[in-house]
């Protein structure tokens, strides 16, 4: 290691205590014989301390605090639509049979009264095509990524990569989490898959970040989910800021929606 290497590649991480053990060792051996770099190290430490000291933590203004509390109050009052709110207070194992039946009935009514009962397929749409292919592959074979087979691990990984855990409770449909995968597609796009399975059915959730996304044409919106009939599958698309979730399944929206809403992840009126 020479001066230039130390300063350009190691100095900053050195004072943050973020060098690997091997790098640490190489740095120590250079510093022990180089007074200039020891001086640079001391300067950089002092500079970091100066930055911390001179960038003060501001106090959030009281009116901002009030606005946030008011927004939380509104959220408490309106978070869940009334018909679902009633079910969500029941313990899962007690309330579900009745709740699912009632909620399914509500959605059937919504579908019947919608002017277009069946959304037209959108052949060749790249986003739907990719989602359908991912599902058909996962339905055939799905190997969870290492460290991603428990709900907690997957929730942590999803939170860190996408800002939210994106874990769903489909136990009312007899589906349980089979595992997750977080991979980079060939174009560098980071994609997370979580597969829920049981009773001969499955739902694949696909999370990805798309900055300039517009929903594929067609489909219809129900409770914040835009549903598409595509290659014999149902694909529900939900937008959370820059993150999009695709739910791909052979189940109908009427079957899947109550569980999705029950999971608490849907923000009514987000479409």
């Amino acid at each position: 290691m020479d001066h230039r290497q130390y300063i350009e590649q190691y100095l900053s991480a050195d004072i943050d205590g973020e060098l690997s053990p091997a790098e640490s060792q190489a740095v120590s051996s250079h510093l022990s014989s180089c007074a200039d770099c020891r001086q640079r190290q001391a300067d950089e430490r002092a500079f970091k301390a100066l930055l911390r000291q001179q960038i003060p933590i501001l106090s959030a203004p009281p009116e901002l605090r009030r606005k946030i509390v008011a927004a939380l109050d509104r959220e408490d009052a309106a978070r869940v639509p009334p018909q679902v709110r009633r079910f969500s207070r029941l313990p899962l194992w007690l309330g579900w049979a009745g709740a699912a039946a009632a909620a399914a009935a509500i959605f059937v009514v919504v579908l019947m009264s919608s002017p277009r009962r069946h959304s037209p397929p959108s052949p060749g749409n790249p986003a739907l095509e990719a989602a359908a292919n991912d599902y058909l592959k996962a339905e055939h074979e799905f190997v969870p990524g290492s460290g991603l087979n428990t709900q907690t691990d997957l929730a942590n990984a999803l939170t860190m990569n996408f800002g939210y855990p994106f874990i769903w409770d489909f136990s009312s449909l007899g589906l349980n989490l089979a595992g997750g995968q977080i991979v980079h597609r060939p174009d560098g796009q980071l994609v997370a898959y979580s597969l829920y399975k049981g009773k001969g059915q499955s739902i694949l959730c696909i999370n990805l970040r798309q900055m300039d996304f517009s929903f594929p044409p067609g489909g219809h919106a129900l409770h914040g989910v835009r549903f598409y009939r595509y290659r014999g599958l149902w694909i529900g698309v939900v937008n959370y800021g820059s993150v999009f979730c695709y739910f791909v399944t052979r189940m109908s929206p009427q079957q899947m929606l109550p569980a999705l809403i029950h999971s608490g992840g849907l923000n009514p009126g987000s479409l």
Partner: protein
Amino acid sequence: MAMGAGDSQKRKQFETEALPHLDLLFTTAMHLTRNRDDADDLCQETMLRAYRFFHQYSPGTDCRAWLLTIMYNAFRSSYSRRQGREQLSASTQEFERAIDAESNQNASQADPQQLLIRSGLDEDVEKALDSLPEEFRTALLLVDVNDLSYAQAAQTLDVPIGTVRSRLSRARSMMRYALTHMVRARRSAGS
């Protein structure tokens, strides 16, 4: 409307675990957006999103890092685009060229800390920070202001750890450069 028992418990937990980080979020939002109104909006949006998804936050994990991830995602999806990303800050290339030119001269002349102590222009540090291009400003905010580890910052920004490391190293060079020049400019204007 009356809340269920589960809801009010969630509200209490949110108020003890998430809301105490509001000062830090506000500070971060001010330097991200560089604008008081936008910082307010960004904080509100972040807290509301966090509240909606709070049932999925695992107690005991780092709530601050979780909130910052939500904030950064919200910022990236709306504010940065709306503002026209680099409107106020110098471009990265501009900084790099200037720093290269500087380091070809005698580098030891430019010790911003000494200059600052002598001139007492402390408020320049925040101005220098706000002049950095977004990706460098963000790395510095997460690690030096919010005390995140490189790994946490990498997860928040959705970039590899090596990228955080190099951005941070360059961010500090840019800060030195910007501070040195601000102090010199003030001095020559004053003398």
